[in-house]
């Protein structure tokens, strides 16, 4: 079986996988990092989103062997070692942006990448459009949008009108 070397959440792993193994399968089954979820089989739902070299990818849509030598961050790798949550995680909690929690890991990983790619900030409409690749069946997205609006200001080191409005 092919070997693949990945750095996941800062730890280097060399694992043997079948050639057809998806990245999400390697994470969940081989490395037992079950925070990354699988919600569909057509690359639509985004529950499996992780970061690869800092960019969000749907880990159900890339083979593990394609990730040779790459740096992967999953939901398990976001909080600081002392347990301090990432600002996006904190915002999701504060704004009640999750219910059943199943879409949440992918939603949080997508949201962080979205914020990182928009250093000038996003409007509510931009956030909604930016979540095109992530499905949530519980929240109606209302509070997810508010959480991302608030988190982007923390991540960019500012407080905007949007965050103030969301906080009200």
């Amino acid at each position, binding site marked *: 079986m092919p070997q693949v070397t990945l750095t996941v959440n800062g730890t280097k792993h060399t694992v043997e996988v*079948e050639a*057809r193994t998806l990245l999400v399968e390697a994470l*969940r089954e081989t490395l*037992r*990092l*079950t*925070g*990354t*979820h*699988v*919600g*569909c*089989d*057509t690359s*639509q*739902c985004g*529950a499996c989103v992780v970061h690869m070299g800092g960019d969000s990818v749907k880990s159900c849509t890339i083979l593990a062997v394609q990730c040779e030598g790459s740096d992967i961050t*999953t*939901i*398990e790798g*976001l*909080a600081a070692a002392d347990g301090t*949550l990432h600002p996006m*995680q904190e915002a*999701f*909690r*504060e704004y*009640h942006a*999750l*219910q*059943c*929690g*199943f*879409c*949440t*890991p992918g939603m*949080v990983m997508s949201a962080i990448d979205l914020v990182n790619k928009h250093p000038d900030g996003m409007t*509510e*409409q931009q*956030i*909604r*459009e930016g*979540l*095109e690749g*992530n*499905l*949530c*069946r*519980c*929240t*109606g*997205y*209302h*509070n*997810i*949008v508010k959480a991302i609006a608030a988190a982007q200001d923390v991540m960019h080191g500012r407080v905007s009108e949007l965050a103030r409005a969301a906080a009200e």
Partner: protein
Amino acid sequence: MNVVTPFEGIGASLRRKEDFRFLQGRGQYVDDINRPGQTHAVMLRSPHAHATIDRIDTAAARAMPGVKAIFVGEDMAAEAIGGIPCGWQIHNKDGSPMAEPMHPALALGKVRHVGDPVAVVIAETKAQARDAAEAILVAYTPLPAVSGTEAALKPGAPQVHEAAAGNLCYDWHIGDKAAQEAAFARAARVVKFETTNNRLVPNAMEPRAAIGDFDAFSGDYTLYTTSQNPHVIRLLMGAFVLHIPESKLRVVAPDVGGGFGSKIYHYAEEAIVTWAAGKVKRPIKWTCERSESFMSDAHGRDHVSTAELALDAEGKILGLKVHTLANMGAYLSTFAPCVPTYLYATLLSGVYATPVIYAEVKAVFTNTVPVDAYRGAGRPEATYLLERLMDVAAAEAGLDKVEFRRRNFIRPDQFPYQTPVALQYDSGDYHATLAMALEAADWAGFEGRRAAAKAQGRLRGIGISTYVEACGIAPSAVVGSLGARAGLYEVGTIRVHPTGSVTVLTGAHSHGQGHETTFAQLVADKLGVPTANVDIVHGDTAKVPFGMGTYGSRSLAVGGSAMDKAMDKIIAKGKRIAAHLMEASVEDVEFERGTFRVAGTDRTKSLTDISLAAYVPHNYPIDEIEPGLEETAFYDPKNFTYPGGCHICEVEIDPDTGRTTVVNFTAVDDVGRVINPMIVEGQVQGGIAQGIGQALLEAAVYDASGQLLSGSFMDYTMPRAGDLPDVGVATHTTLCTHNPLGVKGCGEVGAIGSPPAVMNAVVDALRDYGVRHVEMPATPQKIWGIVNAHRIAAE
């Protein structure tokens, strides 16, 4: 030390306790569990809607790498494994029972819908199991199929079951037909309205999964499953399918990623992996793929209805007549028969003082996935029918749609209100929720917004829905007389530990509702124990004494009330212990939020003093009171609860593309006492998203041959963030009069109240086109077709 902050009790928007694990990837869903020695199962499913199985050749598949076993229907039948049972028996008009054909876990001789499981392959890895499943050769002879609800009853329609002549499951009615006919005879106007309630796929984001585990040493079975009600699964699967006593069967439903009804039911795959684990003596995991979910999770809705409303000259309702066809799919799912009857027809009075109602419901079998309760279960179908009918009737009678509703509302002074269709509403104030919603939505200013939109070439419409629904289905004796094969109480255990922390065992199950927070708030409020010291345990039959699970917005109203009763018992016992310790009479001991006090004195004992004394009974009235501080209550409600309210939707339609955009949505709901406003708002917003999805986007579409055309997220339009508006949510409270918490339920109001508000807005937007009705979902294609036909006609 128990120090409770006042912000943690009832009414606090406490941030959720469960979020820490979900936000860090530490939730534990079924597919996250791996048992030692685990194997993997893949189901081979029918590609045909209806066919005989002539031969199954598994020889090549058995020889594939890693394959441990392959089983087909005959293997289970040979061991007298039972069919998947139905939990509710409806009786026909003539008193005879409904048709209830056998539902084998693995198909026996015939398949009846696309996705019907035919064989299970168990292998060392999932990939090996999948490879082997593809190597099984099944010889089918396809048969004519029927998928449409109306088509099923047509003469000559293909027969789904030999045991259900004419595809009729039941022909049921409720109400007084003679009184209805008399009311119609003296009516000034009768308004007739026909509609289809579109079939939906629940699509909880976590696909179903199950792990069967057999312990050869003890002979015990364990099933880990994505269930909303593990005790019910243990009861149904143990007693009716696998014949395993409850004492030898443990069912665990850990973190579950959404349910919306679809994870209530006992599914074939649960029985298959549990039974097969006993055969292969290894744990077996099965995890559904999304395309499998589409063709194996129970669908929702799928009604075809005709309603007639009789009005007097002043626009007062004299009577209502309804005829409904309900699609059951190929087999009867656990609750399916009660959805279009006791959860639907009993709600046809809505918020209106309708003197007489007569409703007939026929349920039919088709070659489609079974249909069962989906968020709201019968009440969305009733509310949609009524609230569209109210708009149509107001228009035909030349009345303002708000005034017409108000004129027919049940008034606050009429509660308790007995409807002509069995329910007795205990409380509500429909005038108040209407007034609040009209103001919040700026109803009065709408025509200005319509004109502004028109000036920009867009069609703007406003729609209203005023609704009531029924939650916490009960009491057991009544539902039993109506055909339920189970009780509908709930169980709560309060375990106060020696040093004062509390474990709550509840038969309710949380799959997004935030029970670990809300229930802890109940304890904080009543016992004065901080929520950080309260643990909520649910979802495991080995830990929780019993329970009926979570559906029908029952967890707080029924499960919370059970906890409240158990806490009453804790306080009563604590008072006796406190009386002994403080050398006072029990009657003189008061309890408030963690402190026992001798009335009128400064002598006090904390709950922790009492729990320590109860477990370390050195100075203790041991002859009178048993040690320990743990109490269990079974709570069987006296009635349903009746949340209600008003939803107002504003849409804009782009006539060039037919796209409908929800621009404003206002909800004012009466859910009774609110424990955690943040969680209630989230529940309402989520329900409204599903309601808007039903109204504008979602439809499970079968072609005439029974193939599911909308079988993936590429084809079935799930609402995405860009499809939905900001939703304004408010509450107005009247208390439930018959449960100790005064709560009603908030899980389904959004999905019940919203679809007609959206569709009334769509029809209103198209009013210049002379449109009387638009069927859900109002897709761009459909709306563009209406607009374009009008344009052509005008030219």
